[in-house]
């Protein structure tokens, strides 16, 4: 499974965690852990404990589930600095928007060409609204 991280094809990186957020929270959470979460988890709890986490992998059960976009946006808004990795049904046609809302790593679906996917980041280079990437229209800068 190819991984794009920080706008590059990543060769060596941490594996995607298989510990679910709720299990981690209920079993002595430790600084520097990584968890797997999705739109079903309690978002206020995630936001409250995010500063302990080195990586938050947000799972897209189907590509149409857009909750992960708001989750990443809110994590970054709260100042979360760790890795936010998109996992599950992740394809090149959505990673530009994902990057804009705050994801910095993308575990691509098996059928995806990673080199081609890289070209999709920033495919539309101008933006009408601010997002986690800090880029917005002229009047906001």
């Amino acid at each position: 499974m190819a991984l794009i991280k920080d706008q590059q094809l990543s060769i060596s990186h941490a594996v995607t965690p298989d510990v679910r957020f709720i299990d981690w929270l209920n079993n002595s959470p430790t600084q520097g852990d990584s968890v797997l979460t999705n739109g079903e988890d309690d978002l206020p709890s995630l936001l409250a404990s995010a500063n302990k986490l080195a990586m938050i992998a947000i799972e897209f059960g189907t590509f149409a589930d857009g909750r992960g976009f708001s989750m990443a946006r809110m994590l970054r808004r709260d100042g979360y600095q760790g890795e936010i990795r998109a996992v599950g049904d992740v394809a090149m046609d959505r990673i530009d928007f994902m990057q804009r809302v705050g994801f910095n790593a993308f575990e691509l679906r098996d059928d995806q060409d990673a080199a081609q996917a890289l070209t999709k980041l920033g495919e539309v280079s101008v933006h009408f609204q601010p997002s986690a990437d800090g880029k917005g229209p002229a009047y906001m800068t």
Partner: protein
Amino acid sequence: MYAYNQFDQTLVDQRVDQYRDQTHRYLAGEIPEDEFRVLRLMNGLYIQRLAPMLRVAIPYGLMKSEQLRVLAQISRTYDKGYGHFTTRQNMQFNWPTLESVPDILADLAKVQMHAIQTSGACIRNTTTDPFAGVSADEIEDTRPWCELIRQWSTLHPEFAYLPRKFKIAVSGSSSDRAASQVHDIGLHLYRNEAGEMGFEVLVGGGLGRTPVIGKTVRQFLEPQELLSYLDAVLRVYNLNGRRDNKYKARIKILVNAVGINAFAEMVEAEWQLIKGKELRLPDAEIERVKGFFKAPDYLSTEYAALTESDLEGAFAEHPQFATWYRQNTRDHKQPGYRIVIVGLKNQLQAPGDVSHQQMDGIAALADEFSFAELRSTHDQNLVLADVAQRDLLSLWLKLQGLGMARANVGTLTDMINCPGLDFCSLANAETLILSRQINETFDDMDYQYELGEIQLKISGCINACGHHHVGHIGILGVEKGGKQVYQFSLGGSASNDASLGKILGRSIDQDQVVVVLGKILDVYVQLRETDETFLKLVRRVGFAPFKERVYGTHQRSAA
């Protein structure tokens, strides 16, 4: 009107390239069908019963004449020489090929148009009053605010995969001509008691399977915080709207499930975190956008206006002109000017349809008489917003030449009609045959004038694109046992007094629709008091006399 700068143009051009690549990869088998479906929908492309359908965005219904000419050209080059205006002020082409869509989008981009977010589970084209900026009863011009919403919502990265589609309508007059109470968000621009301009925000209105009138979620919103507040509503919806059942995924279901007060609290909590920050609109930006919507260079009143006696003279010489003036023009806030509604409801074309010759013709009339701009309306007509009174007679004569001078605006035959089973893959029943039958049966215009204002709205399925729930008379096509039958409802309205029509009784066979409609109108004519509109009468007398007239005989004979 708003003109693209380099920033806007870059976005639209890059979006065309992006979609071209997506189409190419789909045709090469590299994008799965269900995934491409979502990508093409975000670019307005449906696959209909007979062919793809492309919906082109007309932001808040405002167009330049050169843009309409390009729509005409597209209809000639890629389609069958006509287009269709929808209730959301957009234009649909019914016959393009999937392969040609990137080229169509490239042609559109050259005149600052696109099809971005005209479908799909995202924020759709924002709609407004077609008389914005010119209506005599206007409180505040909605167009700058619509443009600000257009920009904020276009390719919003967070809200592209919402639970379901999301529609925003803005009204800024004492009469709501934007159906704002039946939108996911309705915005009412008004002045509060302190004289400050702001928005009342309604949320959770909508039609479809579960028709609901929107509820006030915020009584007064400072305009500088419009985008932050919308952002908060959308975030709450994106995170909490149902995703398990697409028929229960609209924001209205969420609002009804948690209650408007709890929903307002959720929005308020989120809004408190983001208000006053990066989404707050600087006054300079608001003024910049307002600058695009300044009044055109009107002629002086003495030059633009007709004297009362000149007007009476023209009426005497051309009685049909007098009728058209009364039915199809409206008061303008600029003395000496009229708003002209160019009806798309003649006897030969489907409601909202317009041929390429007509598009070119109207574009030329806009150039000659209305500052090269025109608007599309919620009820599927066009508007020339700034016509000097002295030009009205010439304009009317030229509209006659285009077959577009039928003086039926606001009457029974000025109906809203979805395309129905003739085109749409969702439809259960034909609707266009009904508009033909209604036009054939009720062809006496004097009878229509005598009936006065009647809003007839026809949908070919429960999705309610024809807005039948809010028609004074609504007709819904359904399929029963392999047969197309039609359900009448009465008493709906999408105006200030918004209400949902109630079903009259059991469904009617297709060949009986005009008969039943005639009976309903008969009851109205018999029972009405002086100056009582159809809607008022229904509200006063209730359903009993209509039921008796429509079903009474049948029930007796069955007994």
